[in-house]
């Protein structure tokens, strides 16, 4: 039975900004991914991208409600199912243009070991859209089966 047939195309989850709460989010992503018969390797990619989105928000967003608001959506486009994960924080936002691009050279010269989160998300997901401002940051990531 599809989620459409069950009348549910999205699942919402709110997690507190607290250590290891990203694992709670990945468990939900895995469950939805399995439901649409996404491969285990692709589910792992979604899980890691989601982990990076969560820990970025935990570390940098300073969410006013100390929460992350997640939505897991399933859909179909061009005859392919997809899992879309939206991560919303009600924090202070950030200027994407100000983010320094990481590189292995910078990482191994000791100048910048961190800062890989966005790059990892973009590398593992089929699409990543980020909107950020004073109201917070919204990341919408999609992976096709």
């Amino acid at each position: 039975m599809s989620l459409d047939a069950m009348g549910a195309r999205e699942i919402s989850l709110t997690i507190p900004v607290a250590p290891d709460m990203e694992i709670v989010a990945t468990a939900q992503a895995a469950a939805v991914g399995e439901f649409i018969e996404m491969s285990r390797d692709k589910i792992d990619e979604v899980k890691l991208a989601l982990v990076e989105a969560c820990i970025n928000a935990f570390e940098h967003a300073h969410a006013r409600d100390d929460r992350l608001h997640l939505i897991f959506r399933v859909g179909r486009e061009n005859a392919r199912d997809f899992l879309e994960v939206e991560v919303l924080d009600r924090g202070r936002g950030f200027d994407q243009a100000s983010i320094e691009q990481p590189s292995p050279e910078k990482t191994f010269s000791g100048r910048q070991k961190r800062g890989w989160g966005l790059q990892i998300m973009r590398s593992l997901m089929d699409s990543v859209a980020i909107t950020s401002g004073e109201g917070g940051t919204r990341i919408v990531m999609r992976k096709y089966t």
Partner: protein
Amino acid sequence: MSEVCRVAAERRGDVAILSTDGYINNQGGEEIARQAYAQLETGARALVLNLEKTRIVNSIGISILIEVLEKVMDRKGQLAFCGLTPTIDKTFRIMGLAQYAAIYPTEAEAVQGVASA
């Protein structure tokens, strides 16, 4: 997946094998580093990190693994990874670990690789 990363150490001559089980985040990375440094202090020349029971390594955990790799390189030692899932393998390549450390499919190949290096 366990939230706590367990790390088991085994020694074969001057090669230390650290096997992880669970999520490698900052705590998991720090436990790996603690055990890796203990092995180096007691004479290990090469480290093999077997991640076959780990399905997620976050970027904080990887940054700690890079610190371990740098310490091994400073000592002119060897570090190799094995048992990586495709996602971890891809992430290690994105972040450049594959440029500085060998990646093998199996523990046996990794041990042989660092022993002959």
